[in-house]
């Protein structure tokens, strides 16, 4: 079976591979959770690339309704056309605007659908999609016809855990929690993204990064995406790895920390720690 595997750009752990392949072969949605910045959204892109299917992205916001993914009936423009006496107004299907799922269902080739950050939407959002994701079909009330998927799409759903998802929804999904990568995996990830990084720089950067993650009380721990941004900056500046090495174990504020610490309280906290350790040492 040609399944999903780590690529030279994206390092997937074995458990993630199993989860993706299970979801693909049983044709069920895969729900992916994990700390922000661990590559949930990127996963969908990689799966699409690995399976050679086009990707349809549906980014969910707090105002998104489930119906919008299926279709919308643009009543306002019909009303306007009615006022202007347009001929189009007689056919209601002129005012049915197709959503992302409809697009995916109508596609002639199988596609990957990404429903990004499903937890941002209203609590009823997942419930409203139960049947659609289960049967991969829905009914258009205005035109009285059923839209059925030509090929069941591969559905990948991400969540940042801001809201609990209903049980009935979870029952229909496979679930994967992306654990924060350990050091070895992180080295592989760095290798994949920056094949020509200086070994020493990468090692020191990783030291600083993991030490930073260990600082208790950080509001937002830096994650993989922050590390990648930071390392890119370091490489552009062509920084000497020596600078990153902490003198006698004392905590120092890493250069260009703006890429790692995204919260001013965190920067303050870190400055205080650095100050304390300087005074202590």
């Amino acid at each position, binding site marked *: *079976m040609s399944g999903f595997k780590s690529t030279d750009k994206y390092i997937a752990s*074995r*458990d993630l591979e*199993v*989860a993706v*392949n*299970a*979801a693909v*072969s*049983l044709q*069920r949605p*895969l*729900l992916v*959770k994990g700390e922000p910045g661990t590559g949930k959204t990127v996963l969908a892109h990689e799966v699409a690339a690995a399976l050679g299917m086009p990707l349809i992205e549906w980014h969910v916001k707090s*105002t998104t*309704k489930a119906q919008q993914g299926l279709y919308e009936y643009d*009543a*306002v423009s019909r*009303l*306007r056309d009615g*006022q202007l006496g347009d001929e189009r107004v007689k056919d209601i299907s002129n005012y049915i605007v197709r959503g992302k799922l409809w697009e995916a269902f109508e596609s002639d080739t199988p596609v990957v659908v990404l429903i990004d950050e499903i937890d941002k939407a*209203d*609590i*009823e959002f997942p419930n409203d999609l139960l049947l659609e994701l289960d049967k991969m079909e829905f009914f258009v009330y205005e035109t009285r016809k059923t839209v059925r998927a030509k090929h069941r799409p591969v559905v990948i759903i991400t969540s940042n*855990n*801001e*809201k*609990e998802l209903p*049980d009935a929804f*979870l*029952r229909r*999904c*496979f*679930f*994967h*929690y992306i*654990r924060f990568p350990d050091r*070895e995996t992180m080295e592989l990830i760095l290798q994949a993204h920056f094949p020509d990084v200086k070994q020493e720089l990468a090692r020191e950067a990783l030291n600083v990064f993991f030490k930073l993650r260990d600082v*208790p*009380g*950080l509001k937002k721990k830096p994650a993989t995406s922050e590390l990648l941004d930071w390392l890119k900056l370091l490489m552009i500046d062509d920084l000497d790895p020596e600078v990153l090495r902490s003198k006698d174990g004392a905590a120092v504020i890493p250069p260009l920390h703006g890429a790692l610490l995204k919260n001013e309280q965190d920067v303050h906290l870190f400055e205080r720690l650095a100050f304390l350790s300087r005074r202590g040492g």
Partner: protein
Amino acid sequence: MFAPFILALRTAGLPASVTEYLTLMGAMQAGVANYNIDDFYYLARTTLVKDERFLDRFDRVFGTVFKGLEPPDGIAVENLPEEWLKSLGEKFLTPEELAQVQAAGGFDKLMELLKQRLAEQKERHQGGSKWIGTGGTSPFGANGYNPEGVRIGQNESRHRRAVKVWDKREYKDLDDNIELGTRNIKLALRKLRRFARQGQATELDIADTIRSTAKNAGSLDLKLVPERHNAVKVLLFFDIGGSMDEHVRICEELFSAARTEFKHMEYFYFHNCIYERVWKTNKRRMESSLSTFDVLRKFGPDYKVVFVGDASMSPYEISHAGGSVEHWNDEAGAVWVDRVTHHFRRFAWLNPRPQKSWDHAASIGLVRQLVEDRMFPMTLSGIEQMTRELSK
């Protein structure tokens, strides 16, 4: 075939259903997992666990149910890969030992020794489930090559890896020590209210519609506003008396804050642990007490429950019938906490004791387990976490 496993999961409180069991079987049939235990573990996890909160519990159950499988057959010592032994040696040698190695005739000699030693060990541990023991001797130092040591083999041999994965149990704890005042608590508790206009646009906003239609030169522009609905109902249980006395002030603050924040709010008192009776007025606890069963019957599962207590008591008060210090309880406190947490969908335990000291009292650990780790310190960040948990 795996029915006992599913049943064990359900006993452990993991909501795995027949549907998921069938899905797992389907996935096995489709050949998603290769025929090894690692893949099976991953596949079972992705099928049966639907929330990271249950991952740890799953690991524990998996560990017990499939204990017999744990070191899969093992590999003959003769076939141990050279690099594997090398990394084992490198990992566990101190500089002094390295000097000894030099004395003994270099690295290859040491590898010979190590191989021999492993072979001996295998014979001695023939019947055991682990083929590497813990009692290393001379050239390998006191640490020897214990089961931990096998982990360094994970790059080369994946055999133990899955065991390691489900034996590794991770929790994270953050602590935040901002002092609480009434104002702070109010801020945090306000999050609990869903008074705020939230949810989907459902009501027609006539004023705005008229305004924007006029702006649009008369073509109709409909404006909608989210429907206002007040869904939050809260049930508070206060621990009163005993070791809580020092925390009474801070509890009063939370209480007074909570009181003005919710429309549907009920509170009850208990002492140390919740048992078959709770009461409404502490002074007249005898007359005002009512059965906990009645409370469960009266308040629907949609109420959000907050326990406020330091959970510091003798462990018997939780674990044993008759353990209560005040009266004879027919059923253990744990049974009652379980009953409450199973009835209500969302619950949390606020603990006024500093989070650092939680590990020192056995009873706090017990209660934390009972409330599925939803215990939060009574600090601003703790309350924030709690409200987030409750309003999920």
